[in-house]
Every structure is written in C-alpha cells, then in structure tokens.
C-alpha cells in the first residue's frame, strides 16, 4: 500500500474513532452481543431472537386458502422482542421488552402490526439509548437499583382481553393496558389501590361465565395473591395466601370449585438477591422438597389444602377438572429439571444451542379429601398446552400443544392435539425449518363445548425468513392448514396469545 493511502486511512480511522458513538465501543465490549452476531451468519434459527428495528405497522400478508368465519377477528401475541439495546444484549430470552403482535384476520386477508409495550422501563431506556435496569435473568454492575417489581416490568409474556380491554401481561408485576386497535400503551392497570403494583401473573384463567381468575407471586413476602375479576373487568376479590417458600410458579388451573397450584421446588432465596444475582439466579433447585400442590376453594379463598407430588418442573398447565367424588385431574407439561430456564433459554441469547430436558404431558390425580396426589407421564413431547376455552375447569378430552423438537434449532416444529385419556396424538409438522409458536383452539360458533373448532397459530419459516399464520380444522390437524398467511418479514418468536372474534 502507498504511504499516502496509508496516511489517508490512518486519518480516516482517527476521525471515525473520534466520532464513533459510544454504542460502538459497547458492542465490541459485550461478549453476548458479539457471540450472537457471529452466530447469526451461520445459524438460521437465530432469526427468532433478533431485535426488530422498530414497531411494525399494517403490512398485508400473502394468503392462500380461506380463513373460516370463526377465526375472523384479531389474534394478539406477546413476547420478548427488544433483546439488545445500546450494543448490549440481554442474557435470558425472558428479559426482552415485550412487543404485542396484532394479526387482523378476514376471509382472505391478514394485516399485521406490532408495537413494543411502552413500560416505564422501556421508555427510560429508549431515551437513554442503553439499559438502565436488570431483567428477569440479566444483571450487571452499573444498573439502577430496582425499587419494586414494576421498576423492571417488561410486559412481555401474554395478553388478556377482558370487557374489551387488552392487557399485556408479565408475571412479576402489573398488567399494562394497551389500545386493541393502535397498540398504544395506556399505562399500568390498577385493579384497586390495595393491589397497585402487586404481581399479576401472565396466565389468568377465564371461567365459562367470564370470571377471570389469576394469581401473583410476591417474591418479597412469601405470598401468593389470588384475584377474582368479573367479566366487567372489575376486581371482586384479592386475597393474599401465605406460602412456606416462594416457588417459581408461572401458571395455574381452575376447576368448577377450586383453584389448583403446582409449585415446583425451584425456590427463591432472597439472600441471593441481596448478593446481586438476577431474579432467576436467586432461585435454587431443591428437589428434596417435592412439588407442593395447593388447592383453594373458590367460594372461600381461606379454605386451602396442601398436597404433594414428586419433584418436577413445569411452566404450563393444560386444564383441571373434578369428578363427582371430588377427585381433581390436572394435566401439565412436565420436565425433570428446570434445565430450559437455566440452559436453553439463556444459551440461545448468545446464539448457542444447549441440550434441553424433555417436556412430556403429565396427568395428576389429586384427592384433597384423603390428602393424596399421584401422577403419570404420557410419553408425548409437548409445550404451550391449550384447550377448548369452553371447557376451562371442566372435563376435557384433548390438549392442543407444540411438539417435535429439533436438533437444528431450539423450540418445536409441529402442532399437535393429544387425547389425554388414550395418549393418541394427531400432528401437523411444519417441517424442520420452522419454529412453532403457541396455537389456540377457536370454537366453531353454535357447537357444544368440546365440539368442532379450529386451530390458529403462528410459526417462523426459517427458509423463507418470514412469519406465517395458519388455520387448521381442529379434528384434522394432519391434513395441514385450510388457510395460510405469509408475512413479508420475520417476527421475534413470542410466547402467549389470545383471540378476539370480529
């Protein structure tokens, strides 16, 4: 190279360095970001964990087939989306700020928009151009002291529609009200003054009469707060229940007369929080404690019974119901250890695959009168279980779930429907180059509970690098979709969804 060129290069470099935004230095300094950027080039699945450049507004999908009248409406899905900011990448999938996706479905058209929930945390960090607060599983020096659960609320886990109001849910703090059309954030939902800022979990259960039941785990006070909300979205009751430990409880189930909690022996040790560990790393796996089961009488929330199942971990329950003898059946997605929480869902943030424990359907039998509980495992690989919503708390025959894990990417590639009593599974595989998100059962209007319906859900097509929305006949999944919409882009993989009919 000529000396003059070298000089020119040197001066250009010096000028560049002088004007380089601080972000540039940080990007190079953050090994998680560097690893992820490196992996992006080689591993197609990393597409599902990229941070979108901004909100999405109103793109039309390319549709083949015809969406039946029952699924014409809006599918909302929430999920962690803003995984990195200012060149720094979060170290757990569950940390990212939530983005609510909105799919407006007509017979032959699907319009998509998506918007980040404007939590106080996101607004402050966006203005600062960098992270100011820890996440569920990420914490590093120099962040602000968290003053309460809502200080780092990412509103990134689920969505609930009640009385026309749309709420973006996290599990450790308040729900956030969202405009169902524009997706503008209206602010933290305050059910009552005494529940202001109290955790409101991301898995409320809606009774057949429209009553919404939910809970919140108060990590700082060994308390489980129970909520009963009317179909008018007004709080009827909020009651704290003392628990011997604070377990990681993500979901619960209801029967016609009871609330059912399965508490895996993943226990919060507050001393670890004081030592500076992230929320998830402040928990310890203590299988010797078994899995505590709490059954609460809906009519009198102070009537509680504790039972015990073998130790195990779960995020999600399918459904629960009780027979004439008072025996409760509850199904859930069982894993031997919380390996996904500490391995898979962390490693993928730096573009790495980590071996995942198998998740299978478990069916537990609870006998509160005799204080006995037992369970059996169906060897059916599953996650994201859903049922016909008309059967919530009542006897159900089928679980809808994701299935078929792949060696080539984290997550699943099939949607399946399993008969819980026989273990028989009907399945549609999108193919190994797809990553499947949660699918919902949408009832066919005018049919009885447990009757006809449709399956509606989304997947990430890694080959065409786009998100697809598909609709199936619920009892003929393996026939493949009756309608498929292809978005012109890929969305970050999300968690839970809800559907509102037109």
């Amino acid at each position, binding site marked *: 190279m000529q000396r003059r060129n070298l000089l020119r290069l040197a001066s250009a470099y010096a000028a560049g360095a002088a004007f380089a935004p601080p972000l540039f230095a940080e990007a190079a300094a953050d090994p998680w970001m560097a690893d992820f950027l490196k992996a992006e080039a080689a591993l197609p699945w990393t597409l599902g964990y990229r941070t979108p450049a901004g909100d999405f507004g109103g793109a039309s999908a390319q549709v083949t087939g015809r969406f039946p009248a029952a699924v014409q409406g809006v599918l909302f899905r929430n999920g962690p989306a803003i995984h990195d900011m200012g060149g720094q990448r979060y170290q757990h999938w569950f940390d990212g700020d939530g983005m609510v996706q909105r799919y407006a479905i007509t017979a032959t058209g699907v319009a998509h928009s998506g918007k980040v929930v404007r939590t106080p945390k996101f607004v402050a960090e966006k203005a600062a151009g960098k992270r100011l607060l820890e996440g569920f599983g990420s914490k590093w020096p120099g962040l602000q002291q*968290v003053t309460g659960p809502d200080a780092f609320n990412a509103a990134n886990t689920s969505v609930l529609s009640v009385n026309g109001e749309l709420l973006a849910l996290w599990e450790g703090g308040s729900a956030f009200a969202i405009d169902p059309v524009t997706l503008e954030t209206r602010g933290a939902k305050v059910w009552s003054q005494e*529940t202001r*800022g109290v*955790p409101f979990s991301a898995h409320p259960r809606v009774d057949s009469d429209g009553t919404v039941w939910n809970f919140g785990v108060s990590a*700082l*006070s060994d*308390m489980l707060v129970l909520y009963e909300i009317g179909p008018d979205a007004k709080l009827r009751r909020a009651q704290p229940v003392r628990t011997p430990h604070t377990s990681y409880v993500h979901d619960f189930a209801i029967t016609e007369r009871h609330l059912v909690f399965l508490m895996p022996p993943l226990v919060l040790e507050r001393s670890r929080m004081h030592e500076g560990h992230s929320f998830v790393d402040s928990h310890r796996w203590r299988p010797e404690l078994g899995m505590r089961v709490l059954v609460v009488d809906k009519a009198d929330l102070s009537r509680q019974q504790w039972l015990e199942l073998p130790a195990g971990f779960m995020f999600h329950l399918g459904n629960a119901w009780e027979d004439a003898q008072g025996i409760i059946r509850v199904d859930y997605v069982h894993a031997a250890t919380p390996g996904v929480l500490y391995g898979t869902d962390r490693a993928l943030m730096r573009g790495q695959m980590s071996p995942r424990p198998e998740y299978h359907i478990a069916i537990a039998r609870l006998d509160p009168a005799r204080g006995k509980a037992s369970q059996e495992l169906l060897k059916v690989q599953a996650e994201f279980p859903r049922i016909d919503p008309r059967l919530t708390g009542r006897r159900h025959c089928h679980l809808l779930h994701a299935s078929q894990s792949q060696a080539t990417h984290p997550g699943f590639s099939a949607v399946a429907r399993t008969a819980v009593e026989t273990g028989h599974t009907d399945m549609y595989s999108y193919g190994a180059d797809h990553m499947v998100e949660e699918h919902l059962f949408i009832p066919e209007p005018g049919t009885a509970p447990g009757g006809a319906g449709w399956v509606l859900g989304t997947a990430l097509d890694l080959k065409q690098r786009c998100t697809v929305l598909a609709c199936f006949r619920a009892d003929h999944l393996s026939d493949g979709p009756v309608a498929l919409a292809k978005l012109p882009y890929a969305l970050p993989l999300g968690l839970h969804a809800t559907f509102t009919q037109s």
Partner: protein
Amino acid sequence: MSAIQPTSRAAARWLATCILATTSALAQVHAADLAVTVKGARSAQGLVLVALYDGPETFLKPGKHAGVQMAPADVEAVTVVFRNLPAGRYAITTFHDENTNGKLDFNLTGSPVEALGFSNDAFGVAAAPAFDKAVIDLTADAAITVQLR
C-alpha cells in the same frame, strides 16, 4: 388502607405541629440550612412530604424524625428547606402523598404504592436503605436533590 382518610387540611395541621415542635427545639443552635429538591412526582396531586433524621437509631422510626417539611406536589420539582440545623450527619426520606392521607400507603403485599426517595438516591434491595447509605454530612448550607421512585 385505613378506614379513615384524613383530609388534606388535617394532614397539613399534623405536619404543621411537627414542624413547629422541631423548629423550636432547634432554634437555639444556628448552623446550616439544608435545601431539599424533590423530583419525579408522577402527578401534581397531593403533597410531597420530606422527613429529616439525625441518626441511625431514629432513622425511619415513627415520630423520631428531626424535622418534617411539605409542599404541594409538582411534576417538575418541589423544594423545601430545613433551617438552622446543627452541623452533623443527616438522612432524608420523602414520599409523594398523592391522596393526602398523611401516610405512605402500602399494597397488600407490603410494598409502597406511593413514590418515595432517600438522600443520595439510596435504595436497599426492595427495602429502605441503611442510614449510612443515605447519610449527608452537613457542615454548611447545602442543597440536595432527591428522586422519587
């Protein structure tokens, strides 16, 4: 929530009593004024209450403050001044009494539902900080800013 919600006038009267008691106790010793600016109120409703403590033994103990000041809330900032304080070590706590019931309200899990703050922007892990974290060494007139969170 308490069953009785004192009016803002009652709260103000209670505070005025506290302030009078404090200022007369300190009147003999002339040393320094401490101006406290409080920022971060989410609304202009209610009052911002500021309490001053003069040692770890009394810090945050009910009724054991060395002084209390208040001002109508303002989303920009409010400033109160503690006058004629003897030189020494002090800590400040403040909260935004949005409903003017004269007390910091808590939810049913025991977390505060009104914004609060401490001198040095000190916070414990989901708890109040220790006196030493919030301490100010007052030797001459001083002005500090406290952020409500």
